[in-house]
């Protein structure tokens, strides 16, 4: 993600169905998906659209403390 990022996206891979609805709304193209795996890459800008749109609520976001 861009330096100075404030948000880390966490995907609960047990809840995730790998449907890709998050990918469809991800503007920076930061989500890599396979049949049974998902990864949020450095391109994430923390817009949280993925969390909003996930049909099963598998995505959470946490604030990143500066300096970590």
């Amino acid at each position: 993600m861009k330096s100075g990022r404030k948000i880390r996206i966490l995907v609960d891979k047990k809840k995730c169905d790998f449907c890709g609805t998050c990918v469809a709304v991800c503007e920076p193209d930061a989500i890599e998906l396979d049949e049974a795996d998902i990864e949020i890459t450095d391109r994430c800008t923390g817009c949280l659209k993925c969390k909003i749109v996930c049909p099963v609520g598998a995505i959470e976001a946490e604030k990143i403390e500066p300096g970590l």
Partner: protein
Amino acid sequence: MKERYDIIVVGAGPVGSMAAREAASGGASVLLLDRKTVVGDPIRCGEVIGEKSMELLVPLDERWIVNRIHSACLISPSGHQVFVDNIGAGLVLDRMKFDQAVAGMAQQRGVELALRQNVTGLLKEDGKVRGVEIKDRDGRRLQIRCNLVIAADGVDSRAARWAGLETATSLEDIETCVQYMINGVEWDPDILYFYMGMETAPEGYLWVFPRGKGLANVGIGISGRCAKNQGPVKYLDQFIQRHFPGSTVVRRDVGGVTVCPSLSRLCAHGFMVAGDAARQVNCMNGGGIFFGMMAGRLAGETAARAVQKGDFSESALSDYPRRWFKTLGSDQKRSYRLKQAVLAVSDETKDKIAFRLHNRRRLSYFSVFKSVFGTKPLLLLKLFLFFR
């Protein structure tokens, strides 16, 4: 798999399989890739399509037809039922069997199908698409070259972005959806039920699609915008607790469905996109099979001709978008405008109209929507053109 093909199709759903089948018809070498282990599994679809629409795509086969429907019921926010029975027959499908059948049709034409292959990038030279990068299930990375890539890689498509075509979909242009197949349903199995309302299914609808033998697909789509407040699962669970309290869930399907106009650019040099990846979905009902497979056929036909001519430039491929936008593309655009217009009708107004119509018989979808847009001539015209 070989090192090189004339055409690589990404995505072995029905759209990719249709495109591959047509693309191979002139003898071109075609590789059809999917990251799935099993074609058509899991399904992410309501599994309903009009019989007439399906007949335009492939010959009907009872092996993937689960049920036939002859009526629909639209339920307004406060519960008024409007029966629509002047409609053509509808088919409830077994999407897994259907997807496998269409992939089989492609294979019969000589298409090579390779599963568990995840396309992770496009090979490009001077901005021209020349092949794909793959990571297979064992983690092996390989490159396969081709003259033309057809991307039918679904709602979560990235290939079009890599080719420089697509921008992401906004929250109000996508429905976030959950569906359960449940048993213990004693409702009339000859009717498709559509529930509307901000409390039931905000900016979308909830469906009950009977499969016969007490089974039904019960699902919901709500807009990404409304999902900020509450996700689709809670709405669906509430509905099922109320209407099917004794039922059991035998399958759960989740996914996203776009409800926006198709991409305005469908080609680049050595590249075409079709299906959900191109946002070729009916914005009124979320149906993607018909528009997608028709586009897949057009793309495949154009691809076969490109191979014969040895020309894969964007202008050589432009037959495909030209034919799409002239016919189905304009229907699809119209479905978007109608969807937007229906969204603007308040729950209160929907209730008033439903109340007026609820004892009428022999209604068609057209006459129902005519009631909705009664005082808006421009929308009436669009409606007429959409249903003609």
